[in-house]
């Protein structure tokens, strides 16, 4: 949490302190905006993560698909959409995990769940 904003419960505010913490993670995700890099990630995720100098703790969050943990580690939500896509996790699947629910449970909380 940065100095500028009072905390909001259950909410991450992506400020420069968090962005700095998540530098390696966000750089890696930004690279996934290229088909070649997406193929490289899918071919060998370990080598890909090593190339972006992720720490062991960061690599573990990716290996475990721990999206809540990645946000806390400074990954920006829009960067996370790219790693989500590369690992077959849609925004709503990641969101359900962050809420502590199954995907099906989450969908039941929506008014029109067909608009995905």
């Amino acid at each position: 949490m940065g100095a500028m904003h009072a905390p909001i419960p259950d909410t991450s505010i992506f400020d420069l302190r968090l962005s700095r913490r998540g530098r390696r993670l966000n750089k890696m995700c930004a690279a996934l905006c290229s088909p070649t890099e997406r193929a490289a990630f899918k071919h060998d995720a370990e080598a890909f993560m090593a190339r972006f100098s992720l720490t062991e703790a960061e690599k573990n969050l990716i290996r475990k698909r721990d999206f809540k943990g990645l946000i806390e580690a400074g990954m920006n939500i829009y960067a996370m959409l790219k790693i989500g896509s590369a690992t077959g996790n849609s925004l709503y699947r990641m969101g359900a995990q962050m809420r502590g629910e199954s995907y099906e449970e989450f969908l039941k909380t929506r008014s029109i769940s067909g608009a995905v």
Partner: protein
Amino acid sequence: MGRIVAGIGLSHVPSVGPAFDRGRQQDPAWKPLFDAYVPVREWLAKLAPDVAIVVYNDHVAEFTFDQYPTFALGAAERYAIADEGFGTRPLPEVPGDAEFSIHLCEQLIGQEFDLTVCQEMGVEHGFLVPMNLCFPHTVDREGKARWPVKSVPLQVNVIQHPLPTARRCFKLGQALRQAVESFPGDRRVVVLGTGGMSHQLQGRRFGFMNEKFDQWFLDQLEADPDALTGLSHHKIMEEAGAEAVELIMWLTMRGALSPKAKRVHRHYYAPMTTGMGLITFEE
């Protein structure tokens, strides 16, 4: 001279892109959203604008946190479709209006808005979804694709705090109006303010929405936009979700209109995780 003929506030939810590309406009879940834009497009056709200035934010596609501009204005003849990490959407390049853009850069920087000027800039869903809804491209018999207007993308940092204030965004709109009106050539201009409305995409509060706040924001945008310029980012995030702070970009659109601009359309639909708002104004 240049003239602003209309302003539109609208959400730029990414899932609208694939729904548009796959022709799902009549699917029951999407129909209420797409139907709301039918009268808007008819109205726009009558207004016959030449240029759309689109106030939007990039989502780590074209701009990364290595260098992240607070305000960035496109000054190119064309804008490529950016790959956001899911593959490039099947859309034609977007035509720009470099001469008009250069004039806007000169005028805005002259008015002390120190923008980043982009002579090459890919555009993604923040820009493209509003264009798909308001100014969809057409393809003729020979397969030649065409957008009905030229565009000027105006990118705002609404994702990495510190963000520009709501008031600063409104003042940018006022400066934009002066810049447009001082253009020596003829241009009919529509300004699109995009993003929001209420949504939060991370943390345990993922999926949070607040229709009451959204309706209040739409009311105020019409009746008393000055009051909205006093909103803090914190207040918007607390009331409407962290990602709802994108709404400050609607104030740039409103600032570019005269106080007596008349509201024409208004719509709201919140099927999944974002309050999708639409409001139009005519000069």
